[in-house]
């Protein structure tokens, strides 16, 4: 008899895990461990914490997957568990304090010089990478999580909305505001090069 080589869908694997199938759980771990770890790491910036969170997330899968009513939402449920665990870690370690978001984006303030034409060695320098990492970390949690999920992890807006139990317009709005805040920070940082270019 030929071996079944098709790739099982999440819904099939989740159904089998609910029945206690260890092979299906192993496949889930192989399929999602990197995504869970990456999301946890980008929220915590701590490799040990990311490993611990990844383990806890999959233990939560075993313990609570039975409560998942629609297996098609497994991935977004997994991301939600991961996000909650990562912020739980940060709060426990007191490494995260939510900042007050800007109430309104001031168009006049965010117009700066056109730093998009700066050379790559400036734009991609270690210093500029640090600046943007710090800026992402300083975003209010409601925007930070969405920016990480979208711009770092590459999730779709719909997946983020489902994961965070938000409406699609809310995701888009927070993403936009977060990106504008990051752009603001980078504009301030790169403005030091404005005079050098004009000279």
């Amino acid at each position, binding site marked *: 008899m030929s071996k079944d080589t098709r790739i099982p869908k999440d819904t099939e694997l989740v159904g089998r895990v609910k029945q206690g199938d*260890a092979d299906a*759980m192993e496949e889930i771990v192989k399929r999602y461990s990197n995504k869970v770890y990456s999301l946890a790491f980008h929220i915590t910036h701590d490799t040990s914490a990311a490993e611990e969170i990844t383990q806890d997330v*999959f*233990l939560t899968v075993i313990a609570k997957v039975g409560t998942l009513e629609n297996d098609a939402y497994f991935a977004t449920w997994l991301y939600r568990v991961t996000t909650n665990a990562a912020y739980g870690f940060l709060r426990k370690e007191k490494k995260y304090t939510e900042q007050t978001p800007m109430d309104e984006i001031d168009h006049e303030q965010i117009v700066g010089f056109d730093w998009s034409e700066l050379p790559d060695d400036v734009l*991609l320098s270690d210093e500029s990478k640090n600046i*943007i990492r710090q800026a992402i970390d300083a975003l209010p949690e409601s925007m930070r999580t969405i920016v990480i999920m979208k711009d770092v992890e590459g999730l779709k807006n719909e997946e983020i909305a489902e994961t965070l139990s938000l409406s699609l317009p809310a995701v888009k709005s927070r993403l*936009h505001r977060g990106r504008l805040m990051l*752009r603001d920070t980078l504009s301030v940082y790169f403005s030091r090069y404005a005079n050098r270019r004009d000279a």
Partner: protein
Amino acid sequence: MNCKRYLALLNEFVECTLSQEVQDDIRAHMDTCPRCRVIYRTYSLTITLSRRAESTCCISEDQVDRLCCLMSSRLCKK
């Protein structure tokens, strides 16, 4: 199209989720407004830099193997 409306739609414009008509309006606005053109360029680049600033990280194969073993043993105990 004015600058305020342009800014409100910039996110959708970058993601190409607007109607062709609105996208054309935005492009026409950028052609006449250098400030909004700068915002578009730097906003788009901010997204690119966010992706590049955060290092790609992978869980080790050993860790995945350990997770698989742990999960299997937990499921067998249930």
